[in-house]
Structures are given as structure tokens and as C-alpha cells.
């Protein structure tokens, strides 16, 4: 499975410096949001989806595996965190931990099943598994079906950070996002990441070099699923609810769209893509179902003419890796 990335097209000099500059710029930009007039709720929501898209991109952009069921990790972690916070009354940090742990277990189980098939079969299996979970959550009593879990207390993180204050919540979400982002960056640039890339480029060759590629893909799946779960747990504090929309397969489609728009296999692409798509949904909400049509059109345009995505095109133009 080959994804069009800059690595496959041309081999630019490794440009850690460029990536660092962009990272610092991104951090400064995001850290200054509360001082501007921008609606912080919108940015927080976008950050959660950006983290989800980054986690998804770890799997497809670097492992070549198109998961069409990443919503299941988002939704599962969301439900578990929400339940832990509201029913068990756990503090925020433990609530997040419960959600992440749930996503971790789920990714082991689903990864074990799905990693056995490759290519589009893998995509279909992940899609079917997430739909299976959708129906389970629809019927399970603790999720409250169509209503979802609502009115989740935000509480005090570590006993000091009052998450009901928007600014504090914003910085907590930002720190969570940056932490996840750096972890993914670290994974990509580790020997493990290099093996993943080689599997993406040519799995048969990686096998012949002695790598047990299934284990690498399995581990990548677990990492990606767990991080996607982390995004889901953070999202609970922002939205203060956990509902079926987060598990529905159209959410998985949106994650794919975000990554595709930003640039598959680029580090910053999913972040840009998430902001673009969330902004689009925010501002086009009054158009009703036209949003679906527009999203579909973006899919078609991206696949036909714009396969590198926004960041991919920019990076390609300047011959940098971003």
C-alpha cells in the first residue's frame, strides 16, 4: 500500500529544523488563542479532532493502513471517561485514564482481528467492527442510547485546575494535544517508525529483511487507537457529553477527510485538515445537508487532483518534509 508522500516522490534532506520551527510557531499560535477574540470552544474542539486525525495518520501515513473505524476509539474512550466521571465520580485525570485504558484494550482486540487482512479488507473490517460497537452502544444501558451521557462534571484536575473555567480548560486541552502530538512525532522518528515506513513502501521487502511486519503493524494499530482514545477522553471535557455521533461511521469518514485534506503522511497535515473541516462545519452549519455534499466534493477533488493535501503540497513546493 503506497501513499503519495514526499518520501515516496523525492527524498528531501531530513529537515528536523523546519519541523521544529513550524512546531514552535504552531504552539505559540495556539497558546495565544485566549488572548485573541477567537471562540475558544471551537479551537478546543478542533484540537481534539486534530489529535484524533494525527493518531489516525500514524496508522495510514506511516503504516499504510487505512482504518475506516477510528471513531470507535474516540467514542469508546468518550463513553468510558464520561461514565467514570459522572457515575463513579472520579477526578478528571483518572477519568481520562479510564478512557485511554478502554481504548487501549479495544485496540488490542480489534487490532488482533483486523491486522490479519490487508489493504481494503482491513478498511472494511475496521468499519464493520466500529459499526458492531455502534449497535452495542445503542443498546447498552450505561450509554443511555440516543440521549448519550450528558451533563458531565468537569471537576478539578489534580485537585487544582478548575476545568469549568474556559481558559484553564483550554490550556489543559492544549497541553494534552501537544503531548499527544510530540509522542506521535517521536514514534515516527524512531527506529520503529522507520520500519513502519518501510512496510508502507514495500511490505514484502520488509518481510524478506527479517521484520515480522504483522507485529509492527499491530503495535502501530494499538498506539494509534490508544491515542485516538485520548482524544476522545479530552473531548468529553470540551463537549460535556458523550453521544452516539462519536461512534458512528460517518465520524470515521470525517477523520479520513481531515487527514486527506491536510496531507496523508505529513506531520502537520492532520492538524491543518482538522481545523479546516471543523471550521467548515461551524460556518456552513446553516446549509444543512449541503455540508455532506461539500465534504463529498472535497473527498473527490482531493483524491483526483490534490492527493498530497494542503501541507503536502506546501512541503512539496518548498521541497521540505513537514
Amino acid at each position, binding site marked *: *500500500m*503506497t*501513499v503519495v508522500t514526499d518520501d515516496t516522490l523525492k527524498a528531501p534532506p531530513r529537515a528536523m529544523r523546519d519541523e521544529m520551527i513550524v512546531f514552535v510557531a504552531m504552539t505559540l499560535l495556539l497558546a495565544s488563542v485566549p488572548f485573541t477574540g477567537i471562540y475558544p470552544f471551537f479551537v478546543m474542539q478542533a484540537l481534539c479532532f486534530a489529535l484524533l486525525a494525527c493518531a489516525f495518520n500514524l496508522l*495510514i501515513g506511516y503504516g499504510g493502513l*487505512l482504518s*475506516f473505524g477510528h471513531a470507535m476509539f474516540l467514542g469508546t474512550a468518550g463513553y468510558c471517561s464520561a461514565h467514570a466521571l459522572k457515575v463513579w465520580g472520579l477526578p478528571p485525570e483518572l477519568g481520562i485514564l479510564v478512557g485511554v485504558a478502554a481504548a487501549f484494550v479495544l485496540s488490542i482486540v480489534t487490532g488482533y*482481528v*483486523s491486522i*490479519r*487482512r*490487508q*489493504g*481494503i*479488507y482491513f*478498511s*472494511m*473490517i475496521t*468499519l*464493520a*467492527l466500529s*459499526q*458492531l460497537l455502534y*449497535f*452495542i452502544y*445503542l*443498546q447498552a444501558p450505561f450509554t443511555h442510547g440516543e440521549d448519550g451521557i450528558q451533563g458531565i462534571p468537569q471537576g478539578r484536575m489534580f485537585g487544582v485546575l478548575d476545568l469549568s473555567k474556559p481558559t484553564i480548560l483550554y490550556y489543559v486541552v492544549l497541553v494534552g494535544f501537544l503531548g499527544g502530538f510530540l509522542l506521535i512525532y517521536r514514534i515516527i522518528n524512531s527506529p520503529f517508525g522507520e520500519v513502519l515506513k518501510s512496510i508502507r513502501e514495500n511490505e514484502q521487502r520488509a518481510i524478506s529483511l527479517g521484520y515480522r511486519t504483522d507485529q509492527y503493524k499491530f503495535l502501530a494499530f494499538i498506539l494509534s487507537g490508544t491515542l485516538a482514545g485520548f482524544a476522545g477522553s479530552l473531548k468529553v471535557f470540551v463537549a460535556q457529553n458523550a453521544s452516539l455521533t462519536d461512534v458512528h*461511521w460517518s465520524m470515521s*469518514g470525517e477523520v*479520513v477527510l481531515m487527514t*486527506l485534506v491536510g496531507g496523508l503522511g505529513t506531520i502537520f497535515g492532520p492538524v491543518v485538515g482538522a481545523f479546516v473541516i471543523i471550521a467548515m462545519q461551524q460556518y456552513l452549519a446553516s446549509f*444543512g*445537508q*449541503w*455540508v*455532506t*455534499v461539500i*465534504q*463529498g*466534493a*472535497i*473527498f*473527490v477533488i*482531493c*483524491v*483526483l487532483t490534490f*492527493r498530497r493535501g494542503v501541507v503536502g503540497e506546501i512541503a512539496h513546493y518548498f521541497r521540505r518534509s513537514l
Partner: protein
Amino acid sequence: MQALYAQLLVGLINGSFYALLSLGLAVIFGMLNIINFAHGALYMMGAFVAYFLLNLGGINYWWALLIAPVIVGIFGMILERTMLQWLTGLDHLYGLLLTFGIALIVQGLFQNYFGSSGLPYAIPDELKGGMNLGFMFLPIYRGWVVIFSLVVCLATWFLIEKTRLGAYLRAATENPTLVRAFGINVPRMITLTYGLGVGLAALAGVLSAPINQVRPLMGADLIIVVFAVVVIGGMGSIMGSIITGFALGVIEGLTKYFYPEASNTVVFVLMVLVLLVKPTGLTGRAA
């Protein structure tokens, strides 16, 4: 007992749709190497075209059964010529994403114009009523759906496995360059194959219109179950798709009778079990 037979019949009908849809997917996958995510949307279009033919043109069900697949098939061929063909040689993944985008556009447009609620489509007079089989009451239309789709499935199987045209098709799947060297227009064959697969989906849509209502999202939920069916059966053989489709429909129907809570999930659970035992699917070749 009555309820059991009724659920078995419902299962057989759902199985007919699964079989027709996964058969179309298999045909398309064989030639184009694309998992046609737009299949559910095209199935929905089939039902809508039948609805328009009846309400705008006064064209009845029987003609719709013929015309709707042709119209939607032509639409599919246009899609193939204008978009899908540009993906030849690229990864499978892009075909999946492109057809997903097409599905979103089509479904979104229909939702805009017709809302999300269903439009009724009457059962044709000839197929109204039912008969008493002694052990159960069989609505004639439902029996007709099962038998008709079985015939269509077997005809498609015959066309692909037993005729000369089918032989070209299978050869072109294996080695398009060589088949081209024999003077056969492979790109045209690909377009026609896509049209055929799409036509099968639209036919399923027309069949389903009188049973389920005509809704913009009628294909969206169905297609994921069909994907699970495809994973269970594998797409190695045409006959495999047909048998798996019907069998899973029946199993789903039985679950609805014995343990209704699991009826939504049984196909997916089966998928997991099959994958654990036989990762290639029941009739599949290695991907």
C-alpha cells in the same frame, strides 16, 4: 412457529439484497480493483429512479425493473469514465476514498431534496396479496423478491463463469495487457463491468422499494453490513458471494427470532469469528 417462518422469510429477503449487492461489489472489484463505497448510494438511486418513473412518468414496476438499472448503470459508467479511470495504477485506498466521496455527494443531494423520511412505493397489483402455504402465510411480493434475485444472481454467475464474454472478463482481470494485445477493448470492458455491477445494485434498489420505503439513507446503513458479508465470504468467487449473501441473511433472520437483541450485530460477530478461524474469508483468495 409462524413467527419463525416469518423471520426466515425476512432473512431470505435481506439475503437477496446482500447477495445482489456483494455480487456487484465482487464484479467491480474483480475488474477495477476498487471497493465501491458508492454501492449503497447507487442502490438507493435505483429505488428513487423507480419512484420517479412511477410518479412522474407513470411507468410501472415491471418497466422500472428494467429501466432503473439501465439508467443508474449509465450514471455509473459516466462516473467510471470521468473519475474512477484516473485512479488506475494507484493504491486501492484512493478508489475507496473517491467512491466514499461520491456516496456522500449523492446521499447529501437526495437528502436535500427529499428529507430523510421515506417515500412510499406501492406493491404492483399483480404481486399483491399472499398465499397460504399450509404452514405459513406467504406475501407474494416477498416470495417474488427471493426468487427473482436468485435468478438474477445465477444469471450473472452464468454470464461470468460460463460464457465467452465472461471468459474475456476473467482474462482481463488476470492480465489486461495481454488481453488487449488480442484486440479486445479492455477500457470499454471495464466501463461496462462497472455499469453491470452498478446495475445490479440499482436492481436491488427497485426490488426493495415496495418493501422498505424509498429513503436517501437506505443504502448507507445496508452497505456496511454488505461489507461485513464480503469480508466473511471473501471475494474470490462469484458463487461465494451469492451463497454467503443468502446464508447470512437467513442467519440474521434466525437471530431475530431466537435472540432479537443481537440481530443488528450478529453479522459483525460472525465476521470476527470467521476472521479468527480463517483470515482469508470463507471463499476468499489472499488479498
